[in-house]
Every structure is written in structure tokens, then in C-alpha cells.
């Protein structure tokens, strides 16, 4: 089905560019720089707050219908942080965000300065002994001094895996949540053209993967009337997979709940009604675990009606995350359709 608004080629290009950038939690600068360049011509104002969130504001036409809306997609990706360098130059590390040891073995990782490493393991008697503390990163340094030329304790690495296309599907690292960031930029293109009454704050947030941290302080500063997070959600459509309702290619996922949020019923209904009316493919997401920026946002100040749109994804928090461009386009379409129209009175 052709997209209603989204320029799919443009979004795909941006996803590829953003996903290739380095940006573990707390070190989102390269992603922020890329995004700043893309949103500068589309926003009325751009700010970076004290935690590093990039906030792009579209002023809106105003009037009695106007609301202040916050959209959030996080810039950070999961990664590894160096905790120790041994005499032979091997690096020990801890995870940044949700990572298991099985995902890591044999992976290639890259540091901010381009230093490449591979993850090795101590000799294990049993695969069950595969624990994070028995893994290490080998950057090819022969000594502590040689390693210390390139990394130090506190340096972070991310998966080295660029996005590859496979028909309408993309696979690679950091599609969580660079695909959401690309959705927000694409939405800004259309809001620019449509000039709705609402004042829209597009927040590219930091440190989501370590506890929804950036969105919390951004929401405090913005104090929105309504908020939507745009993130990815695990799909349940792989062999012997989890029993989850969401399928790749099934459309944008309207979040009902996860562990951080129960979507405001009016927000959820608005999303469902708008999607149904515009013929945008959608599915309902009920996630028994996990969280998104909306979880932090809705508890800000005296509370913010909030919901989330999720891009279905497979193999999350691995180098091979996979999304469907049709779902990405549907997410753009639904956001644009919602923001072009009147928004309900809230809370009520």
C-alpha cells in the first residue's frame, strides 16, 4: 500500500545514515550532530538541554484548537563501557543498556574514535558459564600502554554493523531507535507543509536505554499538553517466538501498555480512530515488559496524557535488528494525520 504522506525513500536513507552513527547512552553527540543538520531547516527553534536532548520546535499556527505536543524518539543505542584494561591490553566491560552475553560473543564493536575490537571469551567448560564478566574486548593492542593510547576506562563501544536492505526490510544495529528518530524528521517535513495549529516539540532524547532519563528532563522543560513516544517494539512473529500480538509488516503499533506506561485512553483512542479513518495499517501493542520515553514523560510535573507508536522490530538489542519500511511509513502517516487535525481536550 502506498504511503499517505511518508516519502519512503527519504526515510530509508535517513535511517541508514542515522543507524550508522555512533551513539551509546550518554555519548549521543554524533547522532545529535546529524539530526541537528536535518532538522535545522524544518524547525522554528532548536535547543540542546543540559542532559544533551535535542529539542526542535515547530511553532504552529495557534488559535483555540492549538495544543502543545511533545514527540520523543531516543538517539542513544545500547553499547558497552570499558571498566578495566589488563596488562596485555584486553578490555573488560559492562553493558550499557539491556544486553546479554550470548549476543556479544564474536561480535565486532567500534569505539567513538573508530577503534575496532572483537569480543572474545575466556575458555569455558560449559556454554552455561558464558557470563558478561568472562568476556573481553580485543582491540589488537599488545599491552596496557598500547590499549590506553586508544581507549580508557569509561570509553564506550557499539556494535559495528551497518544497515543492509532486504526488500522492504532493513537489518542492522541501532534501528532501535534511529528509525524512530527518522520518523520524527519525516513528520517535521510534513508539518512544515501542513502548518497545523499545534506547537510541536520533537525531542531527540538521550539515555533512554539506561532508564528513560533524557525524556524526563525534556518533558519537565516543555510541559506538554500531550506526548507521544516513537520507538520500536518486539514482534512475536518469528519461529517459536514470544506470544506477542505485533507482527513485522502489520502496520504501526499503537501501544496499550508496557512496564513504564499505560497509554492515556483518549490518546490511544485518537490514534486508533485516526488510523481507521485514514486507512493507515495499525495493530495494538500490549507489551508485558520494557518501557519507552512515554513512561518518563507521563509522570512529569502534574502528569501528561501520553501514548506511543511503535515500529515492530525483530532481534532487538542485537547487531541484526530488523524493521519493515511499510511499518515505518505507517508510523509517519499516522503521526502526521493526528497532528494535522484537532486534538481532544485533556485531561477529562
Amino acid at each position: 500500500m502506498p504511503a499517505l504522506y511518508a516519502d519512503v525513500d527519504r526515510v530509508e536513507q535517513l535511517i541508514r545514515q542515522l543507524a550508522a552513527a555512533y551513539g551509546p547512552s550518554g555519548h549521543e553527540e554524533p547522532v545529535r550532530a546529524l539530526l541537528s543538520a536535518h532538522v535545522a531547516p524544518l524547525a522554528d527553534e532548536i535547543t540542546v538541554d543540559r542532559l544533551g536532548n535535542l529539542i526542535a520546535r515547530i511553532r504552529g499556527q495557534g488559535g483555540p484548537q492549538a495544543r502543545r505536543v511533545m514527540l520523543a524518539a531516543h538517539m542513544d543505542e545500547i553499547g558497552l563501557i570499558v571498566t578495566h584494561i589488563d596488562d596485555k591490553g584486553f578490555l573488560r566491560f559492562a553493558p550499557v543498556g539491556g544486553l546479554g552475553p550470548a549476543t556479544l560473543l564474536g561480535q565486532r564493536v567500534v569505539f567513538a574514535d573508530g577503534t575496532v575490537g572483537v569480543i572474545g571469551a575466556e575458555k569455558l567448560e560449559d556454554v552455561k558459564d558464558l557470563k558478561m564478566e568472562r568476556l573481553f574486548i580485543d582491540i589488537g593492542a599488545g599491552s596496557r600502554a598500547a590499549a590506553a593510547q586508544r581507549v580508557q576506562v569509561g570509553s564506550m563501544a557499539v556494535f559495528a554493523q551497518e544497515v543492509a536492505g532486504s526488500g522492504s526490510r532493513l537489518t542492522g544495529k541501532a534501528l532501535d531507535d534511529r528509525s524512530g528518530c527518522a520518523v520524527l524528521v519525516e513528520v517535521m517535513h510534513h508539518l512544515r507543509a501542513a502548518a497545523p495549529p499545534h506547537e510541536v516539540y520533537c525531542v531527540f532524547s538521550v539515555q533512554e536505554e539506561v532508564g528513560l532519563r533524557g525524556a524526563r528532563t525534556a518533558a519537565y522543560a516543555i510541559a506538554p499538553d500531550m506526548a507521544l513516544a516513537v520507538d520500536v517494539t518486539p514482534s512475536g512473529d518469528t519461529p517459536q517466538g514470544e506470544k506477542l500480538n505485533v507482527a513485522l509488516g502489520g502496520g504501526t503499533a499503537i501501544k496499550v501498555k508496557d512496564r513504564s506506561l499505560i497509554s492515556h485512553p483518549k490518546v490511544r483512542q485518537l490514534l486508533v480512530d485516526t488510523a481507521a479513518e485514514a486507512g493507515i495499517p495499525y495493530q495494538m501493542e500490549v507489551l508485558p515488559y520494557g518501557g519507552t520515553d512515554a513512561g518518563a514523560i507521563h509522570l512529569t510535573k502534574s502528569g501528561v496524557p501520553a501514548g506511543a507508536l511503535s515500529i515492530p522490530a525483530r532481534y532487538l538489542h542485537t547487531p541484526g535488528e530488523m524493521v519493515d519500511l511499510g511499518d515505518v511509513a505507517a508510523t509517519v502517516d499516522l503521526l502526521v494525520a493526528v497532528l494535522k487535525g484537532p486534538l481532544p481536550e485533556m485531561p477529562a
Partner: protein
Amino acid sequence: MILRELSELPGVSGDEHRVRARLWEAVRDRVDGGRVDALGNLITWKGADRPGPKVMIAAHMDEIGLMITRIDKDGLLRFRKVGGIDDRVLAAKAVRVGPDGIPGVIGLKPIHLLKDNEAKKAVSHEELYIDIGAASKEEAERVVRPGMYATFATAFGELGDGLVKGKAFDDRAGCALLVELLALDFPFPVYGVFTVQEEIGLRGARVAAYDVAPGLALVLEGTTCADTPGTDPHGQSTLLGHGPAITVMDATHIPARPLVDGLVAAAESAGIPWQWKRTTFGGTDAGSIHLTRAGVPAATVSVPCRYIHSPCAFMSLRDFENTRRLLAAFLEDVPRVAERLAQGSA
């Protein structure tokens, strides 16, 4: 040494008033003013009207401990843990119970009476009890009530080459450092905040930071020092005697890079030994402070302490002094660090 007094005072989370009173006495002549907020944090300030970023320096007053939950028929006290305590450190320790410091011992079956496997297992805190020598419930109730706190009865002392031992160095070491720092004069506003209830969820710091609304924050801690047998080199969070530890990440916070860089630069240029904290679990008040209002750049500096969250920790007085020197040097650099922070968010 104020650390001696602070270490020996009882002050389990929610019961920090004795520590607070002693700290106020120690700092009242060093600050322009102070007040106690609704949760019990002691917020002090100096130079509040000066230009520049408001700098909040926080250390928590509370310590881990026990709370009496029930008194048995036979006069023995059942308890729950307040804060993170390894059950294995509890058995057979001397404690003090309640506001009057009633002496007691955490009781355990003697070895003669143990069944086959009992000696091989650590006893859960739910099976342990505090014995204050009361013969009956009635006798115990004359001096103890459920809801009262208990702390380890550990005397402060000096040992080894410049080491001290005592309880509650986490975070009375931080409190003692803050007392020292408040003797200095700063060209910018400084808020010295002694917080409550850190050990049970970084609670006091959260509301104190909301109130102070700082431009940047430093958290002073006594942190783990796993340099003892049985720990791989890469699992050793800090090393005793190797100087102040600077945190790069923990479970609650990724420190602001300009502050971390500023701390490292201050240590290097003053020739002060320092180390990275090399593990990423646990949390500090910085976890709540940095998420306050629209966000606060924050960092954590710790004095390494062996055996924290146990009845008795070790700390090096040289580490303490080097931590004080590092913080003093960093605070001199604050105007420059603030400039770098401002550039970062331009």
C-alpha cells in the same frame, strides 16, 4: 576527627537526626545559612547571591541498618534489613537497639547444636534475631518497640599504616569531606546538602535538588573497594590507598563528561593520585539529582572503602585527604567547567 564521631553515631535511613545535629554544629560557622527540609535533609549554603552556577555538593547522612519488626514471647527481637545488607555478615554481630542504644547481639544457634547441613548455609535474616538479654516479651517491651532501628555496635579505630576502621563510612566519609569543603570560600554559590534516605532509593537528594535547583552537582561517597582475595582484577571496583575514585557510569547515572574531565584534569594538574571506579552497579544520589527539573549535570567522587555495608569498613586517611584535595582543586576550576557545560548545550 569528626569522622570518628560521625561513624559512631546511629543514623539508619529515616533516623538521621543525630547525625544531622552533629553536622549542623560542625558547619554552622562555615556557612551563611542552613535549614532542614520536610524530609529531613540538611541544606546549607554560602554565597547564595554570588554570580555563577549554583553548585550543589551532596553527601548522605543515612547508613544501612536494621529495623525491629516483632518481639517474640521469649523476648527475642525479630528484624528486617534497611538498605542493602548481605545476610552472611549479620550473624553473631553486636548491635545497638533503639534511641537509647540498648546493647544486643544477633543470635545464632551454637555450633554444638547444628544439624548436618546447617553449618554449610548462610542463615537468612528472617531466621536471625537480636538478643538483648530480656527473659520475656514483657521485659523486652520495657525498652524496645517494633519500628525502632538497630545499628552495628562498631567502635571507630585506627590501624595499619594510616587506615581507620568503623561503621557507616558509607557515607559519613562523604559527610566529613563536605564539612571540610564548606570551610573553603568560593566565588560562586555553593549548597552543601546532607541528604536522608539514600540507601533505600536516593530519596532525600531528589527533593533537595528540586529545592536547590543547582547548575551542577557533585556527590561525595564512600564506595566499594573490592581489592581483596577472590576478586578478579577486572572485578575490583576500586583499590584502597590509590586515591579518590571517579565514576564513569553506575546503575543510576552516567556522569556529565565535562565534570568527569574537569575532575581528572584537576587531579592530574595538582598531582593527586586518583582512580576510575571500575564497576557499574549500584547508585548514588547523583542518580536522582541529575534528573531533577530540566536536568542537572552531575558527577560522583568516592573515597574507596573496604567492606562497606558491613559492620566494619576500612578506609585510608591518605585517600580521604587526597579526595579532599581533589575536590578543592576541582571547585577552583568550576567557572571554567561551567563554561564548557554552557558550550556543550549551545
